[in-house]
């Protein structure tokens, strides 16, 4: 099966046939080469081992995380790629927000260590068995994990930093001629500001 051709009939069948072995999966072909798989959290390692062992999914390109505060859940997406089938499998799982602990897949894919460390720093999600969960990029940051939805960055900034008046004469000249900024930042915030929290 030469890798260059579009996924013909046999590629989808091999994947569909393969994925029948794991129960509780919902698959959807998002695009000719992209397969979305929704599965319960505990079956993810099995799926990854199956894909890695039987279908050549040796490359874990990323783990991304989405914060759903309304459902009280984190959504983890594992993007894996096979150089034989040339199809990107995106495994979506949902884990509850409050304990926020999940299993590390470092033993399957070495790069997972960094993805998990990054997610831990940004979302506070703890991965059991990950080699190093220390500070990764935000070495100077002492506050809560910043990418969680309940963290309001702008409020923290307004409380922490001050501003300065910067009204250079070239700006006043332009404004005199009617140019300059059409909508001031306050009005922008104003439109949004009425209904949002003060």
């Amino acid at each position, binding site marked *: 099966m030469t890798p260059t051709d579009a996924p013909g009939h046999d590629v989808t069948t091999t994947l569909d046939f393969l994925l029948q072995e794991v129960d509780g999966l919902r698959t959807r072909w998002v695009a000719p080469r992209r397969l979305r798989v929704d599965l319960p959290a505990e079956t993810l390692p099995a799926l990854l081992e199956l894909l890695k062992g039987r279908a050549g999914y040796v490359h874990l390109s990323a783990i991304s995380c989405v914060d759903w505060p309304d459902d009280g859940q984190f959504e983890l997406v594992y993007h894996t790629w096979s150089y034989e089938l040339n199809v990107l499998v995106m495994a979506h799982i949902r884990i509850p927000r409050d304990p926020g602990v999940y299993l590390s897949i470092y033993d399957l894919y070495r790069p997972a260590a960094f993805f998990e460390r990054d997610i831990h720093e940004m979302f506070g999600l703890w991965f059991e068995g990950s080699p190093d969960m220390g500070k990764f990029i935000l070495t100077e940051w002492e506050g809560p994990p910043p990418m969680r939805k309940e963290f309001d960055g702008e409020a923290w900034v307004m409380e922490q930093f001050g*501003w300065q008046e910067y009204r250079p004469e070239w700006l006043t000249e332009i404004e005199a001629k009617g140019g300059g900024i059409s909508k001031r930042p306050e009005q922008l915030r104003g439109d949004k500001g009425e209904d949002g929290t003060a």
Partner: protein
Amino acid sequence: MTDLRTIPVVAAGEERPSGGQGNLLARVFDELTAFCRSRSLFMLHYCTGCGAVELPPAMTSRFDMERLGIQPMVTPRQADILLVTGYVSTKTLKRIILTYEQMNSPKYVIGICSCTVNGGMYWQSYATAKKLNDYLPVDMYIAGCMPRPEAVISGLRELIANIRAGRSDYWRDYYRRYDHYLGNQQRLFGENWQTPTDVIAEARHYGLFGPETLGEHTALLEQHQTPLQPFEMRLGLKQDKGSSS
């Protein structure tokens, strides 16, 4: 949401008192040094952010800064101007302050790009410092989300004019109001923030003390600062009383 207009604003930097009427020779000497300082500026080759990509075109054949006597130099000891270009992340700000304190005075800081003025397009980010002159005295701002080389050179020419007229002594402010700057730095980096350069000893050595040099923040610094006394050459023949410095 706090209203932008109600936030207190600090003036860019007060005027320098006009030249005193010292004896003729001293004035001629000051005039000469001011002229040479304005005609020979060594720019520190330290690209702190995205705006630095505009500097090479300003140095190379099209705009050629060397006409103005500006040369890129590699280490802070040799440099006079520190160009803070682009967003100032908290991690980079630590290195900027370290580099600034290692430079020999009279030193000038130019904040290039709007991110150094009021945070620019990263103004909502938790990881960037918004106003550069909270943390070190800034002589000149060149706004623009990466100002073109012409803008950079016009800013530099204005700095040269200021130096020529002796109006650009804003580096003294770092020593005179060190407590204010240290306070802001500690607010961002935490209580036990310390750089290897002993600014207070330097202020004392050159007599640059001002009313606000020492205060509560410097007191905080004194508590935990491991003393970095320079190793004086000593003959120390007799056994030292107690451990070494």
